[in-house]
């Protein structure tokens, strides 16, 4: 792969620019995205700095995972290893998981409870707020060796992230300039979080998937209501489809949410029959429909999928509730880490519904497992033609709220936000010429 083109160089597909606007034209055409964004390792490296260490709030965990003083949880922001702690005073901290001495990973378990974090390499010991507590042989042995007299513990703390919480969701940022968390989320996104996280939650489990695709292919997937009933054919196959084409998208910059509303079965059947959607069947019936037993919790919403840039998805599908975190693992793979939760006050029947319905979602989910496959189909097909572009004009070319699920408005919002944050230009509208993009 060649070097990332510099501003002013003629090139095809993609250009780096310093300014957000050029000649009054939008810098990014969100309806035509060069596949190179999924394949270029240099772009991927820049994302780590510009995006994950830039003005973004990155989801870290649920507060419910860190109930007690001393609780900790390891995670990643982009590819940077971090860990999150609750200290003795009950305060939350997020720290880069790298010893200030010689760079070893300090927190070596996924989760647990400790009073201090000790780097195993030379036993440098840190408080849970990242402050260095002590180093062995600081004054050497018998007056020989050790650190100089001006060595100060306070100058060798772990690198902190700024932490903020909203409704029990913990976020961290490396940025001093990012907007405060509620403003970053946006009022529509906050309203939805207020609905889903309306009372204390309890974690019911985790799932992990390693998918061989760029993390943004999956980001597109979660902002794409079009595929919902076409790629995932379970409900259509069994005539059990309850989540209608009725619904809409709320788009706030690069954040968004998809809402599908409850519909009458008859209406759904007619939609499928009329449109001759592949494999719709009136003959197959579930032998045991208790799989789908559910209880309405959120008004008429059957499914809501919320995307918080850059890597958080909050899903409510029937009675299943989960956060999904996209963890990039190189330009062509990512891990999907799903945290399933219910409410502390769930009665046993509702709790069992959540558990049973988890059959539908996750790595083996009857209405979800196709997503990993779809991502890999895209990644394989774009690998050797990275200047070609996708076509994202479903529901028009704009980026706005729409009262329809047959739209790609939220995907366009993602690419516009991504392109601007990364300082990229692409598409015909960038310079008035078709096909190539240039910076002036």
């Amino acid at each position, binding site marked *: 792969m060649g070097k990332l083109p510099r501003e002013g160089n003629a090139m095809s597909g993609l250009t780096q620019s310093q300014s957000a606007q050029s000649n009054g034209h939008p810098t990014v055409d969100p309806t035509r995205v060069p596949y190179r964004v999924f394949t270029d390792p240099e772009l991927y490296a820049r994302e780590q700095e510009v995006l994950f260490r830039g003005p973004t709030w990155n989801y870290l965990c649920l507060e419910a995972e860190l109930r007690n003083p001393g609780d900790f949880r390891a995670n990643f922001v982009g590819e940077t290893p971090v860990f999150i702690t609750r200290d003795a005073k009950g305060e939350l901290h997020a720290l880069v998981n790298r010893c200030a001495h010689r760079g070893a990973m300090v927190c070596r378990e996924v989760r647990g409870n400790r009073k201090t974090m000790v780097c195993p390499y030379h036993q440098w010991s840190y408080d849970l707020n990242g402050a260095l507590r002590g180093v062995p042989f600081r004054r050497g042995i018998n007056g020989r060796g050790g650190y100089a007299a001006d060595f100060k513990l306070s100058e060798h703390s772990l690198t902190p992230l700024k932490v903020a919480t909203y409704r029990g969701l913990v976020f961290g940022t490396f940025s001093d300039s990012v907007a405060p968390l509620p403003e970053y989320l946006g009022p529509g996104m906050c309203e939805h979080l207020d609905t889903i996280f309306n009372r204390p939650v309890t974690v*019911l*489990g985790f799932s992990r998937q*390693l*998918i061989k695709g760029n993390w943004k292919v999956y980001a597109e997937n979660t902002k794409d209501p079009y595929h919902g009933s076409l790629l995932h054919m379970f409900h259509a196959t069994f005539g059990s489809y309850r989540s209608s084409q009725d619904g809409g998208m709320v788009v706030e910059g690069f954040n968004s949410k998809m809402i599908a509303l409850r519909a009458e079965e008859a209406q759904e059947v007619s939609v499928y029959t009329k449109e001759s959607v592949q*494999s719709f*069947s009136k003959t197959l019936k579930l032998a045991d429909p*208790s799989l789908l037993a559910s209880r309405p919790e959120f008004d008429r919403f059957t499914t809501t999928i919320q995307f918080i840039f850059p890597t958080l998805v909050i899903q409510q599908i029937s009675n299943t509730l989960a956060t999904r975190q996209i963890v990039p693992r190189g330009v062509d793979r990512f891990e999907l880490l799903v945290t399933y939760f219910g409410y502390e006050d769930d009665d046993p029947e509702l709790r069992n519904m959540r*558990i049973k319905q988890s059959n539908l979602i996750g*790595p*083996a989910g009857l209405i979800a497992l196709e997503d990993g496959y779809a991502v890999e189909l895209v990644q394989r097909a774009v690998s050797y033609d990275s200047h070609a572009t996708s076509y994202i004009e479903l529901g028009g070319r704009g980026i706005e709220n729409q009262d329809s699920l047959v739209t790609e408005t939220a995907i366009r919002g993602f690419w516009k936000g991504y392109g601007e944050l990364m300082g990229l230009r692409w598409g015909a509208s960038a310079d008035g010429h078709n096909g190539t993009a240039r910076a002036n």
Partner: protein
Amino acid sequence: MDTTELRAQIEDLIDAYVDCLDSDRLEEWPDFFTERCIYKVIPYENATLGMPIPLMYGDSRGMLRDRIVAHRNANFFAPHLYRHLVSHIRIVGRENGAISTRANYAVFRTMLDPSDYGRSELFSVGVYQDVIVFEDGKPRFKEKIVVVDTSQVPTLLVTPL
């Protein structure tokens, strides 16, 4: 039934079960279970934390059938083969005719799609925690809990383990 005979019956059951999955006779798979049963695939991570969320779950033969009907008719995934290796089968309990067993398993997955045709990888490794009962002299799984050490699923899980 003496222990030698019982062991032989259990090994035959597990051999037949594995053979069914590895030779893609998935329609026969639910018949290895009792009508009311538990089939649960759960990540090691959740099992050790005492958390209930499974990857796959069925509590009736019908629900297992539904999964196979979905596999054949609804789900999209890259075609693949499984090859199970099962070892260290041991009986850990006998109560009221129900025999509790443990066995280690490893599943190698070979891809059959155009991109990766013929490529094999270790797909899943873990432990079968089974409760076996005899119905009309025929052993069946009343419970099969698959604790998956490979908590990080490669791409997706659609064919039962």
